[in-house]
């Protein structure tokens, strides 16, 4: 059975009496030790998906429907008390900005020990030892000394290492990393991602990596979901999605990478912007920006069709497949 299974997840935000849909029924699952990437523009619903797994969407957001199953527990039907046992313990989360994720007035040791003692009945001495072990795991120089330091005494890369150590403190089954390297510079990014990947492998932790950086996704994950306006529009093995994207949006995302552009030319950007949540176009949400859009795209919501290893929600791809099939049978 899958470690995490999300079915028809529907998350809404109420604003001025109306509810806007941030996630419009997404399905995905994650196996033990698997690494999954979720990509998409800002506002596609990536972070909302992450927070809703822990049932931590801030007011006025709420889960309007769907089913989140983690290791046999129905997370969205659990009480706050039961959920607290899962949070931090079985599922850990890593945030975008390492400058902000640590409490500035507590020493790192205090924060790590506090986290351990909130979930386990252990002495401070034992907790300190576990904290030290984890700091060694993330390859921090002189870990003993770090425990008595404050967050502001460390650099951004060091802090992100500490945060990874905190995420690993209780040996979770799943780490949700919400753009963990966006705030770091490029060389540190690569180091941190390599560390995270290695640790997930050795500790057998599943990783859900949320990012808009397709480069990172291609290096780290085995499977990728592409999200647009609250829906998954393409999913499948990362290699296939990167090498042979089917959905026009995924193609656009890849073309927009700076290394895809011809030197001296403009970057290839996708025209237009992500629609706002209270004004999502009917049919395929991508149709106003899509160069292949037909009249059918403005009417019908596309369903997933399988093309080789990936699944794509696009009328054009569906039509092309149908044509090929007809051609084959003739």
């Amino acid at each position, binding site marked *: 059975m899958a470690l995490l299974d999300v079915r028809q997840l529907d998350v809404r935000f109420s604003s001025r009496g109306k509810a806007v849909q941030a996630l419009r029924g997404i399905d995905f699952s994650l196996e033990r030790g698997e690494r999954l990437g979720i990509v998409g523009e800002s506002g596609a619903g990536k972070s909302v998906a992450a927070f809703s797994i822990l049932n931590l969407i801030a007011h006025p957001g709420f889960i309007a429907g769907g089913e989140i199953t983690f290791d046999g527990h129905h997370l969205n039907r659990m009480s706050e008390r039961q959920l*607290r046992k899962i949070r931090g313990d079985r599922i850990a989360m890593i945030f975008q900005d390492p400058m902000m994720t640590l409490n500035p007035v507590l020493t790192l040791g205090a924060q790590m020990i506090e986290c351990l003692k909130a979930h386990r009945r252990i002495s401070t001495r034992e907790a300190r030892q576990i904290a030290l072990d984890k700091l060694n795991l993330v390859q921090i120089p002189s870990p*003993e000394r770090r425990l008595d330091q404050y967050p502001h005494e460390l650099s951004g890369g060091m802090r992100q290492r500490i945060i990874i150590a905190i995420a690993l403190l209780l040996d979770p089954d799943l780490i949700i990393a919400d753009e963990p390297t966006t705030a770091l510079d490029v060389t540190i990014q690569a180091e941190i991602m390599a560390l995270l990947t290695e640790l997930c492998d050795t500790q057998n932790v599943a990783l859900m990596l949320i990012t808009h950086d397709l480069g990172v996704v291609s290096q780290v994950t085995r499977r990728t979901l592409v999200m647009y306006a609250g829906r998954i529009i393409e999913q499948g093995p990362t290699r296939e999605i990167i090498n042979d994207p089917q959905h026009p949006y995924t193609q656009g995302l890849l073309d927009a990478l700076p290394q895809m552009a011809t030197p001296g030319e403009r970057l290839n950007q996708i025209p237009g912007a992500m629609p706002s949540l209270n004004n999502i176009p009917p049919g395929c949400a991508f149709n106003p920006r899509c160069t292949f859009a037909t009249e059918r795209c403005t009417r019908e919501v596309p369903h997933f069709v399988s093309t080789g290893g990936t699944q794509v929600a696009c009328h054009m791809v569906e039509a092309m497949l149908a044509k090929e099939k007809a051609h084959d049978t003739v």
Partner: protein
Amino acid sequence: MSEETSTADLRAQMPGAWARFRKSYLLYSFKRDPVAQLCLLIFIIITIAAFGAPWWAPTDPYDLTGIDIMNSELPPMWLDGGDAAFPLGTDAQGRDLLSTILYGTRVSLLIGFGAVAMQCVLGILFGLLAGYFGGIIDATLMRLADIQLSFSTLMVAILVGAIVKASFGNLMFGQVALILLILIIGIAEWPQIARTVRASVLAERSKEYVDAARVMGFRAPRIMFRHLLPNTLSPIFVIATVQIANAIISEAALSFLGLGMPETQPSLGSLIKSGFDYIQSGAWWITLIPGAVLVVLVLVINLLGDWLRDVMNPRLHKG
């Protein structure tokens, strides 16, 4: 092996709390601010003098047997008719004014600190709740604060004082007056602190470390008191300092109106009031000397509060 010794060395070099304080900006700016130094010095002298009163006050003003009515309204010793036994003169009942002021300052300081402690307990609790939970809890608590602020401290004191006096009688009132004043001033002024705390919590709550704490599975009280509260402490320090001065003034005003400390255990306010009737007859010292002490005490605390605000708020730099 060498790895271990090096970490041990590093640990030995880690600064302790005292060393950190010695290097802190707080101490640095204190050393460079003569006004703050002078104020702290005066404040410490007044506090020690007041709380040590039983040891060095010439007489005990609470001991009615030690008072001789024949000594009443003696001027300070440096004026004609003054008596060396009463350095600052005597009041209308023949109590030594110096001793009475020392004991009175002690009462005023007790009420000032007690009331602010009370304000802090209520204000921090309600401010954290309102700021952290928001929504209906926030709205309710803040409207409550608005209502509380629309009653003046004096009005609350008059009401409560009158009720307690009527139900327990004057003698009983004398025994509970100190605690009663702390409660009244504490309850009347908690919204000041609650609003400050709420504002800081709103700013802190949006930071990711609070999300991170929730993701780690911490309970709301732990997040509020261990993670948010320490990050909102500096404005609380500043406002609490100013509130001590305000509480002392409030107490003096209440006592002056006869709603505060009874004359048998005078505070600075009730001393000023007891002398007020004799100002026209020439015994100015009974009012003026305690008045001067009150002014100096409040001024010193306010100046310390100003200094603290400048230090703790880096955006407010003196030009």
